[in-house]
């Protein structure tokens, strides 16, 4: 039983040069835009160092007001998100409420709804004059009654942002409650604690870090969102930080101020993420040791249906009402008239896909960018995840850090950084799809990397080593052993990046030109033009694709149930 060694003479190991190349790409992707951002923020038009930009930023009411507005919006939304999400996640995770899976699915639905689409839908529902809800109100209160709701207001913005931000809190808290071992509660019960005491002394303290972390994330989302405030605040005549940054790009552009205004967003994001990490990572709160059974569910008895009613009532706002409004607008001759069987029309759909000239271009661009970003991003994330989990080269930790760093860069900040980096030689990418590709790659890299890293850690390194010792080279082992085992994870990652690209608005809005419009930008443009029916059609198409992908991915084993959690809102 003797066979000759499979490779007689040593070959050059290409692994390392390739890996260093990937490291260089990462550095370029993340450090270059941030460096230019810093340069512009701290210099004047002639690139002389100055702090004047920040002085303007913190003394001129034009900038102070948006700063204050943003702070109010973010704080209030975060609070509302917690108040709404905490009871729902407890009901879904720890009680015998009927329809728990349905509620989870509906929360996921509001999770994957692009926030700017939700904002447009709420325009349809609650614009002061034409809003469907206000029309309904006037049926009872009389034609001349004042509007019941005005979505173009601070309250309106806070409401809409909360609708599409509370899932972040829900996912974190529900996850904490799901994984909390039932024995911890049983131990309290056996020592004499009644249900309320147990909840107060054990369950709530254990879930609290997740809730606070969720609040931080909600704050972050509300702070860095561009779509919703742009759609709702600009008509109301005020700015948030993100819309202000965007307006600085309008003619005449004030790039230095835009860069400076992006800095507080960046710094706050980094601080909040650090806070979240510290909260969730604290040793004392992580559940430790042993094997645990499934948690016991609290019996709600007579309150079961009331609880379900509460959940459905809450979900009316992010899901049912907006979706109905969109469907109505898509099939109605007039976006803000209730459709009846006799007035139902396919005209909007035909118009959007055949007559609206920019649709074709935007669709083409979105598909090209989605496919390219998903493919390149998956490969990039795959290689980095491989390097960091298998510790192939020295400095693999730096690579892992770089791959997750973009999490801390809000979309609009990245947009500004990329704009500054790629409008000058040697890289003049502005006006091409390349700059959007870079933006989308950077934005989607962290979640893709984390997903693939998790997939890699489930594959025991000995599986690859077994193949090496039997005669496979590193690349053969990757192709024949690792790749097939990772297949489902790779498909899921690809799909999520694709969806992420489709819904991205806040970076695209500063980077697009007329020839590089994408679907999300088109929807934003159509909103400015008041073409709500076309938005409804495009939005529904977008949602259908998103749901199809999320459902398909959830069917694949390995890529867990709360797949929506990995999406990032633009």
């Amino acid at each position, binding site marked *: 039983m003797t066979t000759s060694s499979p490779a007689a003479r040593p070959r050059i190991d290409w692994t390392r040069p390739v890996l260093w190349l990937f490291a260089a790409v990462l550095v370029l992707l993340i450090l270059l835009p941030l460096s230019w951002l810093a340069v512009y923020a701290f210099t004047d038009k002639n690139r002389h160092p100055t702090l004047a930009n920040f002085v303007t930023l913190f003394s001129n009411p034009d900038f102070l007001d948006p700063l204050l507005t943003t702070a109010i919006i973010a704080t209030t939304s975060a609070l509302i998100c917690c108040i709404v999400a905490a009871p729902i996640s407890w009901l879904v995770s720890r009680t015998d409420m009927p329809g728990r899976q349905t509620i989870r699915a509906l929360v996921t639905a509001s999770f994957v709804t692009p926030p700017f689409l939700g904002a447009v839908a709420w325009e349809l529902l609650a614009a002061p004059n034409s809003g469907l809800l206000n029309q309904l109100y006037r049926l009872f209160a009389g034609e001349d009654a004042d509007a019941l709701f005005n979505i173009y207001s601070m309250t309106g913005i806070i409401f809409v942002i909360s609708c599409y931000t509370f899932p972040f809190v829900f996912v974190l808290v529900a996850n904490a409650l799901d994984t909390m071992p039932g024995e911890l509660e049983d131990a309290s019960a056996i020592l004499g604690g009644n249900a309320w005491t147990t909840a107060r002394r054990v369950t709530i303290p254990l879930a609290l870090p997740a809730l606070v972390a969720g609040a931080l994330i909600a704050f972050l989302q509300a702070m860095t969102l561009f779509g919703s405030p742009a759609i709702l605040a600009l008509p109301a005549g005020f700015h948030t930080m993100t819309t202000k940054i965007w307006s600085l790009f309008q003619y005449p552009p004030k790039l230095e101020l835009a860069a400076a205004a992006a800095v507080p967003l960046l710094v706050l994001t980094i601080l909040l993420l650090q806070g979240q990490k510290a909260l969730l990572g604290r040793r004392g709160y992580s559940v430790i040791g042993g094997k645990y059974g499934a948690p016991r569910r609290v019996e709600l008895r007579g309150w079961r249906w009331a609880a379900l009613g509460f959940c459905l009532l809450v979900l009316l706002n992010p899901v049912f009402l907006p979706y109905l409004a969109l469907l109505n607008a898509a099939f109605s001759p007039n976006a803000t008239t209730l459709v009846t069987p006799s007035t139902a029309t396919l005209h909007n759909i035909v118009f959007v896909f055949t007559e609206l000239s920019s649709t074709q271009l935007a669709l083409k661009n979105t598909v090209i960018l989605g496919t390219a970003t998903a493919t390149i991003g998956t490969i990039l994330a795959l290689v980095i995840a491989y390097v960091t989990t298998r510790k192939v080269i020295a400095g693999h930790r730096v690579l892992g850090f770089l791959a997750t760093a973009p999490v801390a860069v809000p979309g609009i900040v990245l947009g500004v950084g990329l704009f500054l980096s790629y409008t000058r030689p040697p890289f003049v990418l502005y006006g091409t799809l390349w700059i959007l590709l870079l933006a989308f790659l950077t934005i989607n890299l962290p979640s893709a990397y984390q997903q693939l890293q998790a997939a890699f850690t489930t594959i025991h390194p*000995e599986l690859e080593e077994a193949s090496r010792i039997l005669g496979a080279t590193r690349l053969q082992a990757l192709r024949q052993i690792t790749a097939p085992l990772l297949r489902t994870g790779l498909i899921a990652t690809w799909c999520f990046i694709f969806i992420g690209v489709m819904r991205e608005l806040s970076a695209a809005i500063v980077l697009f030109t007329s020839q590089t419009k994408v679907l999300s930008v088109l929807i934003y443009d159509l909103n400015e033009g008041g073409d709500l029916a076309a938005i409804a059609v495009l939005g529904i198409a977008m949602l259908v694709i998103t749901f199809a992908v999320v459902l398909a991915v959830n069917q694949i084993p390995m890529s867990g149930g709360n797949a929506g959690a990995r999406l990032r809102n633009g």
Partner: protein
Amino acid sequence: MASVELHSLVKRFGSFVAVDDVSLKIDHGQLVCLLGPSGCGKTTTLRLIAGFLEPSDGEIRVGDRVVSSKSRTLPPEQRNMSMIFQSYALWPHMTVAENIVYGLRLRKMDRDSIAKKLAAILATTKLEPLAQRYPGELSGGQQQRVALARALIVGPETLLLDEPLSNLDANLREEMRFEIRRLHDEYRYTTVYVTHDQSEAMTTADLIAVMNAGKIDQLGAPEDIYARPESEFVARFIGAANVIKGTARDATHVEFAGTTLEVVGARLTAGQSAPVAIRQHEIQLSTHVPTAAPNTLKAVVTRQVYLGMNRDYMVETSDGTSLRVTTPTETAVEKGSEVWLTLPPERCRALSR
């Protein structure tokens, strides 16, 4: 086929020295066990031999070819070795048969030869009925046999085993020990076997290298290691011997707890402290003064447990040393009683370290 030689092998991880100047020659066809507690460097040594790690210093030769040195390390795939992993590392997306023939496919062997070899190894490892199953559908013992078959079918020059039995339950472990030895005798590979279980090492190995803190503490045949330990570490690790700390009176006598013990083993220097090892079942325990026996001393029983096959005593000598003694079940002595211990001189081994 060839011998495997480690020359002053060193492996550092940062400032931690995992393998510290290890030299070992494994003759062709020999089965050597690296035995030691976790963290002693045995698995690192094995992974150095496999080529998964590069040495910080020293070299590894297979036959007359240097496969690992500080400057150049042949990748694992070019070493013509096979390895059995602690986790078995069976590929879950391939059937048993596909797992087994993987190495042959890499060697571009023709279809007929592969089929022939596969049939032979399936028969040897009693896996014929399971060839088309997936690893997830097999029991632990069956997975273990697939891992063996996969490693053996390529006819490696060297076979490496990394705690191959640690995931099996006790009965199966005993059975597989003999199976591994039987297959080794049949094919005669040069084999390196890593384990922390001394009885596993005893049944399988030609030579045992007991490792401690990155060094080989003692190298010898199983009988040498068990009957003639040289260091306190080996005496304690193999068969949990009592080690008493006395003072040497001359080359073969030790002062301990008011008596003089005659000992064998390491040559002693008068006046130096002298550790002496004696196994618990070699100490004789009696309730009256033994007549005319050398090496007797008085002790008090501090604990007595009935174990079914025998009794397990803990006794304390006059200087406060606790010794463990195993006796037949008939000798029942109450806790607190005075007893006399006889330590047969030929069983008292003076240790050099």
